[in-house]
């Protein structure tokens, strides 16, 4: 009888622990693919070395919408020609400015089309409340893309928005954020 | 017979070959439905004849009808385990199996019916507590689980399985707790039968279905419960009879059947009394307050004949046949009455599903008609085939009918 019992418990445990290892360890690795930004953009060079302010590039438009990442045309106001030594800059000028193409930047906090996020309604908050703090980075962080949903790993979930809204007394009505 | 040792003790079953042919016939129907299912999952509901006017059609009608007819399960359970009508033990197993088929079948159809099956679980995760449909989703799921629990001991009683001591004890323990599950089942079932009715009764934008009521429950809530228990037992009894005709063996004593008929008949009388009252109030008070008349609720296709068929031919007549012992004791009349009873309830569910949305509420809109297409029929038959399969296997391998040995 004792032998029979161990014969039941042990495989159960092996299965149980095995599943935990797979589920917590391996699964997240399988679920996300790692991606690098198309251009190694250095915030540090722009902020520290050139002394630029955040809102020189990340501006609000006159209709109140947020421009997000500047367009190639806007970058080319400075980078019409290669200015420095950095090969990343040369690549940018060559492949995007000269070709008049937009850079397919990967947005860490990209929200899907069904979300209407108004930056101007949240302008009293620090950018880093929601966005990763990249302001001083020299190399942009790795971007993790969910292979099933296609979302960035850092995309805020709805419950996070709702929690903050609730804490700040903002409405959690569906149409406050959805479109 | 290669499966002899799996068959219940002391009963005769047809040869395995014959059984295999029977399964193959079911399989063909099932495969046809499976093909339709594939088409629907792959291409969406455009494969059906549903449209923006008729968002609900054959499937919802079928769901509501089988849930009503499957009410035999909970109500027989209630009568046997809680009220204590012992005679029902002769048919209670069948009632449970039929109930299980009806409920699991409904859930399968529902996953087809929603536009985004992958989000089906939102119903549990993001429930809107004000929606009658939420109540339906929860109760049906829970009750389906109860039915599974009730079905398991019947499966465990298979001769071969029952040789295992553990299984034997398990089955026994299940039986001990059966009254508890019967109670839970009764509670859940009453609620969702009611919620299904409530689903229509609350539609205050749809004069055909809208009913006032008690607290948050429109009258249809109670009427749906009543009509379900008035037809469920009759349906179970009819299934037993159908199985007898197919297998050529006596499975349930006529007394038990007549008892089921009597139960159904009495409840039908009870139901009809209130249904007539409700219809009268709706026609003479609810509708005029919306500026509508009873006559406006019907057109050439969805005519009054449906109402008279539902309440007269398939209401009053079977009620009389079932409650009067003289009629009830004539098998032909008992079966006829049971069939009419079931048809009446199907008509009821049909008009509430389809006629409700066919009636043009805006005065400048017009009546449209709905006809299901092959894909809707195929999937419906798929569920029927699934039911036949479960029933056939259960009959062949499980001791469903305690009286079978003595009757044959």
């Amino acid at each position, binding site marked *: 009888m004792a032998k029979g019992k161990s014969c039941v418990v042990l495989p159960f445990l092996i299965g149980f622990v095995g599943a935990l290892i797979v589920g917590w360890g391996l699964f997240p690795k399988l679920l996300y693919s790692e991606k690098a930004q198309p251009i190694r953009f250095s915030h540090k060079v722009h902020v520290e070395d050139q002394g630029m302010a955040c809102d020189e590039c990340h501006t609000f438009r006159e209709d109140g919408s947020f421009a997000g990442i500047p367009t190639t045309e806007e970058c080319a106001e400075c980078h019409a020609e290669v200015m420095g030594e950095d090969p990343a800059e040369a690549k940018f000028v060559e492949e995007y400015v000269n070709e008049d193409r937009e850079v397919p930047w990967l947005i860490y906090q990209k929200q899907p089309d069904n979300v209407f996020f108004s930056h101007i309604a949240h302008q009293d908050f620090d950018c880093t409340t929601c966005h990763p703090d990249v302001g001083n980075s020299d190399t942009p962080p790795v971007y993790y893309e969910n292979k099933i949903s296609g979302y960035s790993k850092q995309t805020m979930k709805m419950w996070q928005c709702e929690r903050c809204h609730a804490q700040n007394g903002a409405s959690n009505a569906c149409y406050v954020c959805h479109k | 017979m290669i499966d002899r040792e799996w068959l219940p003790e002391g009963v005769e079953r047809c040869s395995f070959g014959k059984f295999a042919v029977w399964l193959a016939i079911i399989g063909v129907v099932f495969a046809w439905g499976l093909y339709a299912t594939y088409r629907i999952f792959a291409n969406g509901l455009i494969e059906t004849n549903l449209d923006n006017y008729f968002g609900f059609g054959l499937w919802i009608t079928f769901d509501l009808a089988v849930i009503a007819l499957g009410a035999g399960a909970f109500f027989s359970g209630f009568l046997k385990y809680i009220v204590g009508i012992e005679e029902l033990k002769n048919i209670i197993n069948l009632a449970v199996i039929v109930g299980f088929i009806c409920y699991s079948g409904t859930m399968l159809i529902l996953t087809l019916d929603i536009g*985004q099956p992958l989000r089906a679980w939102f119903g549990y995760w993001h429930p809107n507590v004000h929606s009658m449909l939420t109540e339906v989703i929860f109760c049906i799921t829970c009750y389906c689980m109860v039915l599974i629990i009730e079905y398991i001991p019947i499966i465990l009683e298979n001769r071969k399985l029952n040789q295992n001591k553990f299984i034997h004890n398990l089955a026994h323990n299940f039986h001990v707790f059966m009254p508890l599950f019967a109670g839970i089942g009764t509670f859940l079932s009453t609620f969702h039968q009611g919620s299904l009715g409530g689903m229509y009764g609350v539609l205050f934008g749809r004069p055909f279905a809208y009913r006032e009521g008690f607290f948050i429950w429109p009258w249809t809530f109670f009427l749906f419960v009543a009509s379900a228990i008035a037809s469920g037992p009759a349906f179970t009894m009819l299934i037993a009879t159908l199985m007898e005709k197919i297998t050529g063996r006596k499975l349930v004593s006529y007394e038990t059947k007549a008892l089921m008929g009597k139960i159904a008949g009495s409840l039908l009388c009870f139901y009809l009394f209130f249904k007539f009252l409700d219809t009268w109030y709706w026609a003479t008070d609810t509708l005029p307050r919306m500026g509508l008349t009873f006559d406006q609720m019907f057109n050439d296709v969805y005519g009054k004949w449906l109402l008279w068929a539902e309440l007269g031919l398939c209401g009053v007549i079977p009620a009389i046949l079932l409650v009067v012992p003289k009629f009830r004791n004539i098998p032909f009349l008992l079966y006829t009455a049971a069939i009419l009873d079931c048809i009446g309830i199907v008509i009821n569910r049909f008009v509430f599903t389809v006629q409700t949305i066919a009636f043009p509420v805006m005065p400048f809109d017009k009546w449209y008609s709905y006809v299901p297409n092959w894909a809707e029929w195929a999937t419906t038959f798929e569920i029927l085939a699934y039911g036949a399969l479960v029933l056939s296997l259960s009959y062949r391998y499980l001791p469903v009918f305690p009286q079978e040995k003595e009757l044959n």
Partner: protein
Amino acid sequence: MEAIEFKVKWGMVINIDKCTGCGACMVACQAENNIAPMVDGSDKRMTLTWMLVYELSNGKPFPEHDIAYLPRPCMQCGKPSCSTVCPVIATTKDEEGGIVSQIYPRCIGCRYCMAACPYHSRYFNWYDPKWPAGMEKTLNISTSVRPRGVVEKCTFCHHRFMYAKEKARYNGEDPMDLPEDAYIPACAEICPTGAIVFGNLNNPEHKVAKLAKSKYAFRLLERLGTDPQVYYYSEREWVRRQGDNYLPHEKTKGE
């Protein structure tokens, strides 16, 4: 569920006597809200038209016959029959302004709301949306593209409300106290005869608030208790009478 009282109540008054049935509102709505064109539009039970123009007849023979056109957006009911029945909270009336929301990523496509709405304002995506090659380049950023299998409906071009609020914030104005023309849905803006007027029903200065009080104003199926935020206007009694169900002896509203 108790109806919520809102400070701002966006509403429409549609003057039927001015509607020529030209259909510009229907086209503008499709373009604004990314509704994919259909090759065959003759089965009106399969088409997807957030805004739909009905043709009304007084039912009399020529020459007493008269016709009218009735554009039908979503009524944004004060007491919606649809949102309360949704099992998954995919449609709600909870935001200031009183617009009934429809959240496509939440909707499971059960179509119960469609069965509940007596105005046929709700539409199901029977097809995956498909644009002729290249035409997807004209997609507006205002409205997300809906996959097949979910329900959708007119939102009073809710995104325009969002845009107006953003603009007000940028200009340091109160986003909840918008000027009358700051937010107008596409249909109302494009209507060549100005038959569709839009504004805040709770603001007595707004045209809609004044028009809605006229004795010629009425709402569709008011007697059902849906309390729509869309009003209609017609000086023709027969038109007003078709706005609701009346027993033969009952007087038409406004008479």
